[in-house]
């Protein structure tokens, strides 16, 4: 039996998430082993918002009745989930062995330097965010940088600014 206070909490949580996700959660909860659907629920939430905010995860915790420490424990385990809004353009650098050997580390340094952010972060103007990938399977093109869907091959550190400029990068604006 749910107490009135809990029903209040549940209703508040429902307002945080889009209706489709709430319906999905309700469906999951009615199935066998409801907790096992946590990851797919988090996927849906991230698909919608682009990231997982504290209040999103707390809402999931209440609606699925899974302790929030477990929800954030699962979410923080997987690289796929991110906890801050991503930039409009997602710059992904391959750090696989081949790319790394061919100088991806230096490209990454340049990238971080230009944008003034670290891996996993987003620029203040929300234009760019940096991710690193573990081998995208295009070793012949190493080092590989991917912006949104576009793949750049054989990237040299001094080409980074030019590539970013295609997406609206202005050196003075992005740097703090």
């Amino acid at each position, binding site marked *: *039996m749910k107490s009135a*206070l809990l029903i209040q909490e549940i209703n508040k949580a429902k307002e945080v998430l889009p209706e489709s996700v709430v319906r999905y959660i309700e469906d999951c909860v009615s199935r066998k082993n409801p907790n096992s659907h946590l990851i797919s629920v988090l996927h849906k939430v991230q698909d919608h918002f682009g990231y997982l905010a504290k209040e999103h995860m707390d809402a999931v915790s*209440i609606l699925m009745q899974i*302790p*929030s*420490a477990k929800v*954030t424990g699962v979410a*923080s385990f997987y690289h796929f989930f991110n906890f801050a809004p991503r930039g409009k353009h997602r710059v992904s650098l391959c750090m696989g062995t081949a790319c790394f050997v061919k100088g991806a580390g230096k490209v990454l340094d340049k990238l971080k330097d230009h944008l003034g952010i670290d891996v996993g972060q987003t620029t203040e103007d929300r234009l760019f965010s940096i991710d690193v990938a573990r081998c995208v399977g295009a070793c012949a093109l190493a080092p590989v940088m991917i912006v949104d869907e576009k793949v750049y091959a054989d990237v040299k550190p001094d080409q980074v600014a030019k590539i970013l400029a295609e997406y609206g990068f202005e050196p003075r604006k992005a740097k703090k």
Partner: protein
Amino acid sequence: MTIEKKITLWIDGVKVTVPEKSTILKAAASINIDIPSLCYHPDLSVIGACRVCVVEVEGQRNPVASCSFPVTEGMKVKTSTPLLRRVRRDIVELILDNHPMDCPSCSRNGTCELQKLAYDLGVRERLFEGERKRIPVDTSSPVQRNPEKCILCGRCVRVCDEVQGVHNLSVQNRGFHNVVAPAHDCKMIDSICIHCGQCVNVCPTAAFTEKDATESVFEALSNPDMHVVVHTAPAIRATIGEGFGFRPGTPVTGKLVTSLRMAGFHKVFDTNFSADLTIIEESTEFISRVQKKERLPLITSCSPGWVNFMERFYPELIPLTSSCKSPMSMMSTLLKTYYAQTMQLDPKNIFVVAVMPCTAKKFEAARPEHMAPWGKPYTDAVLTTRELIWMLKCLGVDFHNLEDGAFDSPLGVSSGAADIFGATGGVMEAALRTAYEKITGKELEALDFTDVRGVEGVKEASVQIDGMTVNIGVANGLQNAKNLLDRVASGEKEYHLIEIMACPGGCVAGGGQPYPPRGMYVLDPELARLRARALYSIDGAKTLRKSHENPAIEALYENFLGAPNSHLCHELLHTHYEPKFPRGVK
């Protein structure tokens, strides 16, 4: 009846027969082989994370973790070989590689399981030194979290989940960045933590400790303008001896009093006094609710861990919970009102120290509800049993050889009913002794309510009082409390009176109690039983065994409070609760 299947195996050449679902570790323990272990805890689920307990099993390519490896028929196990010694030593060395290694200045020096293990396994040099995780200490709450000392054994996570049902802790992040923390890696004070301190008890290192209050007490003791008084909870007299080599279950009330005088406290009072007072107030509240046919069951409110839990997990039970302050807060309030008045002291110059078996009491003392009108808490400092043991050692008190002292009057007089407050079922028993006589007006002949004694998680009984059947429920450990309360919520059973203590076994096994001696473990029911037995023996030896017959309490009402549940009582001895956020998931 099903006959349990038995398995016979050989451990180090010794034939041993054990029940079918046993593990190698348990089988070895049955023939007195103590396989070293770290993440393993007999009363928590088995996760086999640390691999310290590895053994060699014939037919297995690699050593296996004995804590989780099930026994099979004819199995041949070796628990001590040159390979195992090396493997275990290397594992502990690798754990130490990511450890601050500040043992001499660590609060767990001497009680640390990692330290002991490193010694036992012969770690004498550091072969692996590498990057160490750097995470700041979280001192926001009475339960302090130092992730740098954490070895990720996960005992705290399991005790919080399985025993307390709080689920505040989980392993966050991944790989090298693993950290045991509340949701969102937030501060303990902002989490759903109820400050019960069971994580402190099960932690093998100093990753969880209580927040130290000894410095403020030392400071007060050396301040010539301060009148420093101390009062000690019922459970302390049954456990503090362990810190000085006494066997668990040795009552040391007299030595405790003497040691506190030696430490320089001006007056040594007994929280037992206000435990008696709690019984009078609570039983009056109970009888009034029964007579007015108001909301029942009445749920006790002495355990601050339970109160915190109730506010976060069961706020709908606020109206059922007794409005009585805990004995600690009643005592501290009286010390700065009644006692100050009697002694003609300015309450602002009285420094009240409470010795408690509990970390949640530190939280309770700081609650805004327990502030005096001049903005300072009624309880200035709460020391856990462990902290007091350390203070006495620091002061060079030879506890073992002390003469017995007696508590100061009048706030040191107490009945046997108060002594048993420290054990699960004790508050219930004390309340029944008084409620029975108050309702019936007759003398209760059999004072021992044995149905509510013992360390079982949930105890139930029905008592006949004046033709009325009073259903009582007693729970200790909050997962057990959940089970009991869910039965109340579903209407499966109607209770009149419920006692809940947050810690398994009650205050004798509280979050501030001494780490167990060799051969016993935290949460060991035997340890709780021995400590409780000490309290019941004190009760049994007293002639004054009912709270309402305590002459000092009678005098207090006559000279100061008026009648039980009077206006002044409500002002000084009662409190209120509020739903707290974030809410816990039941």
